[in-house]
């Protein structure tokens, strides 16, 4: 008898709670986000979340979406596909979000993309790179570059802007590193006759000791070393290469786009290192300068491309809702697909192709006095269109 009473009470409290939640949500627009806040990807997850919070505050300071307050509902997916799937269902079933920003890695993002597609909820992956994320269907978009695009852009920088003739490739042995290197090699074999790839080697993801690879590269002595990897891989490469007296130019990619890179490599080894990425710190548009100032003021260090990409991921959805004049999923989807020359933090977004892949210029940044600075921009349509 007592148990039954308790059960009824619990059920009652739950129903009341849900009703209160529903009533509360009526005057807010709920957008969901999945970010890895614990485990090995926690640093990127925190970058993404910190930037998303700035985006939410900016939107609400300017009156919200369609007259309603924007509410961000985020969960920690630990960059784990199983976790992300459960949380995606929670975002849909319990929180009833109208759109979702994917602030996590490729494995979880691929897994949830199919769910959001099935439930017809617009999903914008901020920086996940795997091609399958957008292949889930027409509700899935990506604000980061495909690895192949970035690889082609890097090859253009290496061969045309820096004039390298003999190039060594050293890349992290994950999908991203391999695809980026493929794109690089494709561009070289098609557009750069006379340029030779003299070394081509993958290293395992958790690698810390790059001396065996670098000894070999030192012997070959190429004009340029293309290093594909995250800042915690590329940083030690720069430091160890400098220690071994390697004089070749070194070019990296967005994985190395973090203020932590300089800290890990040391200022003298990092000086002059270049990357292809999507955040241009010297872009004078207010959206960029205000974000950098706000981020630094709130968190005490410089933002990176992961955070900037997450910011844009959310803002692309907000912009589409404002243009569509509704949060209706299909109309928002159409509005995202129709995005054109949007004034984004990670560059002026020309739009999305039929697969949902972003089209925008690739930024080339160089480290000067310990900070990433503008070096060039690659916007040839044949390079940046996936």
């Amino acid at each position, binding site marked *: 008898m007592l148990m039954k009473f308790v059960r009824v009470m619990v059920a009652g409290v739950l129903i009341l709670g849900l009703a209160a939640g529903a009533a509360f949500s009526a005057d807010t627009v709920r957008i969901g986000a999945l970010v890895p806040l614990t485990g090995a990807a*926690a640093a990127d997850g925190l970058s993404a979340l910190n930037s998303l919070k700035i985006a939410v505050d900016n939107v609400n300071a300017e009156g919200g979406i369609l007259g309603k307050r924007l509410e961000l509902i985020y969960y920690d997916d630990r960059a784990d596909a199983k976790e992300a799937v459960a949380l995606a269902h929670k975002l849909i079933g319990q929180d009833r979000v109208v759109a979702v920003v994917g602030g996590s890695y490729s494995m979880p993002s691929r897994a949830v993309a199919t769910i959001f597609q099935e439930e017809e909820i617009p999903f914008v992956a901020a920086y996940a790179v795997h091609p399958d994320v957008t292949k889930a269907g027409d509700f899935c978009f990506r604000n980061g570059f495909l690895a192949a695009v970035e690889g082609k852009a890097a090859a253009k920088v290496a061969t045309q802007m820096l004039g390298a003739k003999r190039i060594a490739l050293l890349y992290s042995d994950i999908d991203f590193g391999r695809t980026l290197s493929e794109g690089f090699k494709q561009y070289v074999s098609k557009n750069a006759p006379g340029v030779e790839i003299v070394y081509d080697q993958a*290293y395992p993801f*958790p690698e810390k000791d790059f001396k065996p*690879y670098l000894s070999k590269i030192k012997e070959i002595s190429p004009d340029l070393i293309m290093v594909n990897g995250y800042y915690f891989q590329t940083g030690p490469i720069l430091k160890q290469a400098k220690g*071994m007296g390697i004089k070749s130019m070194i070019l990296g990619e967005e994985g190395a786009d973090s203020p932590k890179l300089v800290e890990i490599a*040391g200022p003298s080894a990092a000086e002059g290192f270049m990357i292809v990425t999507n955040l241009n710190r010297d872009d004078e548009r207010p959206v960029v300068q205000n974000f950098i100032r706000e981020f630094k003021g709130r968190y005490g260090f410089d933002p990176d491309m992961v955070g900037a990409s997450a910011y844009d991921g959310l803002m692309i959805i907000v912009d589409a809702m404002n243009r569509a004049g509704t949060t209706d999923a299909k109309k928002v989807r159409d509005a995202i697909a129709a995005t054109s020359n949007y004034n984004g933090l990670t560059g002026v977004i020309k739009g999305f192709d039929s697969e949902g892949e972003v089209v925008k210029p690739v930024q080339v940044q160089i480290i000067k006095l310990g900070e990433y600075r503008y070096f060039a921009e690659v916007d040839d349509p044949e390079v940046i269109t996936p």
Partner: protein
Amino acid sequence: MDLFLEQLLNGIAIGFIYALITSGLALVYGILRILHVAHAAIYALGAYAGLGIYSITGNLFLALIVSMAACSLVGVAIEKFVYFPLLKYPPYVPLIGSIALLLGIEEVLRLVAGPYIHAFPAEIPVPGFHFGPITMSPVLVTVYLVTVIVLFGLWFLSTRTELGLAMRASSQDIQIAGSLGINTSRIISTTFIIGSSTAAVAGILVGIYFNQVYPTMGAVPAYKTLALIVVGGLGSVPGAVLASVLLGISETLLIGYANIPLPRDALAFIAMIAVLMWRPQGLLGRR
């Protein structure tokens, strides 16, 4: 030839680092027959404690001492409060507890110091060396010096002191050692203190060598050291050291001279499978 020597020197350094982490694990296995996976978390804790003290005081020696003390404390606490109550269960129960500790300590480090990688830009009071075309950076020299000192200390302690005799006796048969009047509970704690301090030294050295300290830095050592103590002979510290140095050298030379399609970390496990097939007692283990 120069390239070969340079590779060899780097390989031995990597092997030495493995040896420092693995020897503590071998000690603990020898005495409690527990796979102390959380040892890798103590190693990460050691790096954080060292970095914390170093950035406050700028004194590397003080950082080393405080970090060793902190790790010993945590090591003994793990032994007293987690392993000891679980000893009466089958060995996989303390192993599960140990894995939980590894993940838990990782997350505590993240909560306290943040998820970002910290650099460890230590000023090292040791000169670098040039032998003709071969250069040994100050950090490399430090890795060699410190490892040799620590390993010599371990050897001296276990073969030339009464404490070492008691430790070896307890690791052969803890009940008989106890019945002969050895205070085995104190010996177990001492083993954890020695193992955890060695892990602290390893954590600081790795932090400086790669200039990185981060919450999940124990993740790879956690499984690689398990393979290494099997290869060396479960519970044999000299075996663990030998296996570590051999692995460091072979990893480095294989990457440098053969473009093997296998990831570096697979090598430890190939060696483990080979040892289990042909010499199950390990390189220096007893049957």
